[in-house]
């Protein structure tokens, strides 16, 4: 049993001593991140609890393997959950027909899928060429074509657009080829 599955099993086994150790080793970092990004103590507590439930339910269903350290992985999940919270209101505006009462379990279940999709995308991005990676990172950060043209010393914005198009296709190819992709998109 690796260190990482030790923590995941502890969650499923409701091992309160280990859970307490997880809090001691990780909560303050998460709290300081949430508070630095316009959250409060209560938000940090919610995010942390939801993150641990997310890991538990995912591990229960598919015995996944954490490739980094447990601490680093938990922090990434918490960061993404907080991003999710901050963007929730934006998402509701576009889907105002769905005015169901918020359910914690819905939220956690959705967040597992979204986290998995995010992992697939970021891991695929790491697999393309350095130049493409740099271009796409700027593109997804909403950098203008004009600024990208200056930065990469291209002759025109059209050249930049072509480059972005090619790099994006490469990324999408990798994403679609991955076994995980199907499960993330089929209904």
């Amino acid at each position, binding site marked *: 049993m690796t260190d990482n599955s030790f923590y995941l099993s502890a969650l499923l086994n409701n091992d309160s001593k280990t859970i307490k150790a997880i809090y001691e080793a990780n909560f303050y970092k998460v709290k300081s991140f949430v508070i630095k990004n316009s959250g409060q103590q209560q938000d940090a507590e919610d995010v942390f609890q939801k993150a641990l439930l997310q890991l538990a339910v995912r591990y229960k269903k598919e015995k996944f393997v954490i490739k980094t350290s447990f601490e680093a992985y938990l922090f990434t999940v918490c960061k993404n959950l907080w991003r999710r919270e901050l963007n929730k209101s934006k998402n509701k505006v576009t889907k105002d027909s769905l005015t169901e009462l918020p359910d914690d379990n819905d939220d*956690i279940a959705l967040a597992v899928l979204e986290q998995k999709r995010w992992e697939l995308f970021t891991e695929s991005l790491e697999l393309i060429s350095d130049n493409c990676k740099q271009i796409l990172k700027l593109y*997804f950060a909403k950098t203008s074509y004009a600024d990208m043209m200056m930065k990469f010393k291209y002759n025109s914005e059209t050249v930049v657009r072509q480059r972005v198009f090619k790099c994006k296709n490469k990324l999408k190819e990798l994403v679609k080829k991955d076994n995980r992709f199907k499960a993330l998109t089929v209904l």
Partner: protein
Amino acid sequence: MTMEDDILIDNYLKGLLPKGEEQSFLERLASDTDFNEKFNLEKQLFDALDENSWSFSELDNSDVKEYKKLLEDDDLQNLKKTLTQVNSEFNSEPQIDNRRLFYYLAAASIIIFLGFQFFFNQNVSNQDLYNDYVALNDLPSFVSRSDDKDELAKAQSLFENKKYKEALVVFKSQLNSTESKGSVLIYKGIAQTELGNYNEAEKTFNILINSDLLDAEKGYWYKALLFIKANRVEDAKQILDKIVSNGWFKSDKAEELLKELN
């Protein structure tokens, strides 16, 4: 996907599509499944890989449904309870809070202590300076004067016995009938200063300063002392500077006092 479609989707996601084109774009999304699929992946990448947004999913995915069902199982419900409990214990842990509170209190008390020290020391030294320089024994005496001497001598005696309130009554009553108006104003102002009636004292010294009496310039000196007693050190310094540069009454003492204040 063609580059034209890519640019189209890109413009839509960035909100750059003109109103007319947006309508036909949405119609195409609804009717063209292939285009719809391409759009969805594009939007997911667009939202997920931008640190300021997040790519949300829908509840109708089969995996999501399964996670939801699993979350209702006993083991995960129990985990939820444990997490709530550990969280509340952890986040209200007394030793951490108390330790922090202790540090805060310790820090606060040091600050308060230093504040008192500073304030108190300054108070004491300003009071000392005032007492050293006001030199009440050097004040003019009314005892030898004729007409009003009885009343003013009486007031002076009250003043010397630190009965400032009573002395003030007499000085006020004698003010307009005395030849020694300058001296009476000085006594009156000092009595007011001693009683802590700084505003009244200031007015009294201003009357002296603005008068055409020979003692007028003495008003500056006593006003400066009043300011020191009232802890208005900067105001006092300004007047003392004036006394020194004009060579007025007690300019040597004023110079000395300035050095002490700096």
